[in-house]
């Protein structure tokens, strides 16, 4: 399935949830915000959010400092 992730096209194998994809990147879940198809995805829904062909995903990784 074709998914646009942070503006870049990616080809991923279904089935895949957002939580599973974040795990493949080794990201700490509590430091990211995810927009799935232009809507914020609450982190408690990462595990059940299935990615589908044509989806867009924005993964915003935060680092500390302010």
């Amino acid at each position, binding site marked *: 399935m074709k998914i646009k992730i*942070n503006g870049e096209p990616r080809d991923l194998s279904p089935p895949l949830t957002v939580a599973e994809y974040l795990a493949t990147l080794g990201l700490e879940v*509590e*430091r*990211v*915000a995810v*927009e799935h198809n*232009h*809507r*914020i995805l*609450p*982190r408690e829904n990462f595990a059940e959010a299935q990615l589908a062909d044509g989806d867009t995903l*924005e993964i*915003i*990784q*935060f*680092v*500390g*400092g*302010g």
Partner: protein
Amino acid sequence: MTVWINEQPRELPVGTRLFAVRDLCKPEADVLIVNGFPATSDQPLRDQDRVVLIRRGERPSAGELEALMAARHTPGVHERVKGASVGIAGAGGLGSAVAVALARIGVGRLIIADFDVVEPSNLNRQQYFVDQIGLPKVEALRDNLARINPYVKVDIFNGRLTPENIPTVFAEARILVEAFDAAAQKAMLVESFRRHFPERPLVAASGLAGYQPSNTVVTRRVGAQLVLVGDGQSAARPGEGLMAPRVGIAAHHQANAVLRLLLGEEPQ
């Protein structure tokens, strides 16, 4: 024709010149501003011109002050900025500098939230003074903003922001600035605000520590209503501290993104 002199309308014969207006209204004025720009020579005035006459060093009356401050803004900008209500989550290096910038340009209302007090380690980058150590940051910042521009309405929330209280604290913020320090708190705030107010712009920051080159700090739109400032990488950690110049660069990227959004421009 009508010419606005220190924000008061005045009927003048067509062809009246600037120096004649000065001599008529305020002969001691030595700073003359026409439509937001200082005028160095005499010039004919036109209908609806805005003229500000100031005597250098003079403290204007309360009524005149706002008009004089607004005189430095591009005509038309001031009205839109004054009508705005902007939230700032966090009053540290980012939030205090964003607040000062937005107050100086006359944003009408700021809603500022923070739970912390001013500490000596804050003074290397945050907009506080030595004699404010120990004060709640939101109170100290409100005092400082009042000294900069008393015509900005500042509402403060002295406490921790949580997913539960974010929609209430920022209920009236049409744009929110994320200015937290901790990464997980930044993510929490973005998630909570976007969830409750998906139609309102949010300007967040990530990656601004250290003394790497200025131009690696960028503003980019990452979602329909989500703007992200920073280099995305340089975290605050031992060996890469937070310092006034680069934190200030990021803060002013955020403030400028807010201004551009208020004026209907693309933030990046």
